[in-house]
């Protein structure tokens, strides 16, 4: 829809315009040494100098926990009240292209069959300002799962740093257009810019289609046990994952009033599938690790038309026992 440039020094003014337009801004911030998405009041609060935020931008549309029901009891009667979980018009700034892509996975899961208004309404009221990657590290593998350091998919407006003073601003959607048109004086025509020259180099390391094809036959392979021997089932991989959507539902009460909450959960936890009888279909960690890989790379591509992984590398960075998903995928592809 058009290409513009914006001066680095104008971002403060752009933030001001967005805020005064009534929108909340979420952006990467540093909190206790950890880079994550938090609400900011002004541009200088935005963290810089990181490769990847520790937590993803997923929280903008699928919070760690959120109210899905509000109720109160009066004697034998129960009253269901209007839940307080309403979408807040939000601009998420500085979303990596991998995270922007993950939003389509989340959208697909929550809109099919039984549309989930809580996720859908948050997606609808969120504008994504992406930020292309000019640096990457050894954990990044977006290009192996259909993404790219400058991929526009999922962003409404994508910024790419093209020199010390300027960002290229690619307008992808009408939401992106409305950001630009809210402060047209801050943007200039882009002219001819070789965007790719400024992007990080992320080499393709495996064939995603080949992985999908090979996985079903490997269900009973001993490699799952080998790879997960050191897994402690902490669930960190799911919590930092931008496209993990599995959740738990829990009630909380305060006297006669209560709320029902949706909370992030993980297929890595033993209790995730534990039946009341004591039977557990995925009773050992190797089966849970297999489920993580199968779901993302075999089941979801068939079901949603997209893998449940965007190659952000967060799970490998966060793993306390150093399980590296990229290495494990390569080993899976070499298994006979």
């Amino acid at each position: 829809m058009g290409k513009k440039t914006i001066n680095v020094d104008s971002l403060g003014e752009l933030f001001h315009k967005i805020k005064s337009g009534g929108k909340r801004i979420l952006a990467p911030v540093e909190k206790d040494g950890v880079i994550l998405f938090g609400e900011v009041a002004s541009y200088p609060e935005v963290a810089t100098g990181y490769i990847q935020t520790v937590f993803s931008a997923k929280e903008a549309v699928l919070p760690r926990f959120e109210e899905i029901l509000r109720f109160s009891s009066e004697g034998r009667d129960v009253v269901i009240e209007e839940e307080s979980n309403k979408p807040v018009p939000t601009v998420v700034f500085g979303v990596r292209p991998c995270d922007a892509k993950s939003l389509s996975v989340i959208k697909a899961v929550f809109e099919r069959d039984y549309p989930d208004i809580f996720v859908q309404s948050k997606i609808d009221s969120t504008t994504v300002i992406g930020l292309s990657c000019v640096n990457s590290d050894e954990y990044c593998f977006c290009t192996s799962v259909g993404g790219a350091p400058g991929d526009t998919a999922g962003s409404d407006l994508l910024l790419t740093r093209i020199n010390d003073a300027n960002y290229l601003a690619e307008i992808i959607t009408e939401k992106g257009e409305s950001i630009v048109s809210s402060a047209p004086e801050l943007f200039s025509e882009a002219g001819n810019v070789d965007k790719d020259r400024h992007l990080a180099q992320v080499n393709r390391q495996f064939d995603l289609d080949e992985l999908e094809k090979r996985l079903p036959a490997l269900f009973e392979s001993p490699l799952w046990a080998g790879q997960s021997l050191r897994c402690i089932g902490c669930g960190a991989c799911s919590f930092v994952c931008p496209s993990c959507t599995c959740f738990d539902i829990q009630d909380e009460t305060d006297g006669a009033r209560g709320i029902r909450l949706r909370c992030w959960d993980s297929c890595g936890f033993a209790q995730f599938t534990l039946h009341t009888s004591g039977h557990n279909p995925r009773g050992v960690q190797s089966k849970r690790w297999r489920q993580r890989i199968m779901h993302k790379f075999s089941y979801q591509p068939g079901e949603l038309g997209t893998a449940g992984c965007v190659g952000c590398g967060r799970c490998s960075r966060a793993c306390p026992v150093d399980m590296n998903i990229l290495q494990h995928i390569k080993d899976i592809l070499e298994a006979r």
Partner: protein
Amino acid sequence: METNVYKPYLMRIAEITEETPDVRTFRLEFTKEDEAASFSYKAGQFGEYSVFGEGESTFCIASSPTRKGYIECTFRKAGRVTKALAAREKGDTIGFRGPYGNTFPLSDWKGKSLLFVTGGIALPPLRCVIWNALDLRDNFKDITIVYGARSVQDLVYKKELAEWDARPDVKLITTVDPGGETTDWKGPVGFVPTVLEKASPSSADSVALLCGPPIMIKLTLPVLSNLGFSPENIYTTLENRMKCGIGKCGRCNVGKYFVCKDGPVFTFAQVNELPPEY
């Protein structure tokens, strides 16, 4: 505005039946007339039953869709939610979300014989189908029920078992495990597969519905196979832990299926294709 898919119907407990010391059946009625009027379901579907403040639990709808105005569920006191449910009294309000999942294809079975094989607390999902078939009795040929429990005390729906036993158009065999009989027990003593083998019902123009604990299923399948039932003609309803019931929370995922939205009803031809994660 679309509706909140997690919002349950408010249901009043109209009747409580104590099936065994730890198994109860609730008859539930809608508290809102318009919801009662628009609600419909089919045999095999399930729901999420909730005690507000404790959480939700998944069980089948145990009553037949031919009986209007209420639904019934039968559950064993086992975990946090079912214990809280069991503490509810007649007249109390609980929540129900549903109906979810696929159904037993009763209309495809017109003119066929039905064989129900089940054990213990697995009778409730089939009870829905049994009453559905009995209420449309002319649509089916023979109806045979083989039901077993650990002990006489553990048999559920005792009143209905007597009712089915008295009907000339139902063949009911109720058995209890060795050691589970009482002095006045007149029925067979033995495990379901053995009792089924002895009864040897015909597989001609017949479908079998098999539902029970994993060990019962494992030992019953070869018996059904020997009787001539093909995996395509043996139906079951799978159980996996669920939270949402609508294919999102991820728990009941088995291979490319979610038990909640692609099941819970499967034929054994389908089950045999699934990874063993149920």
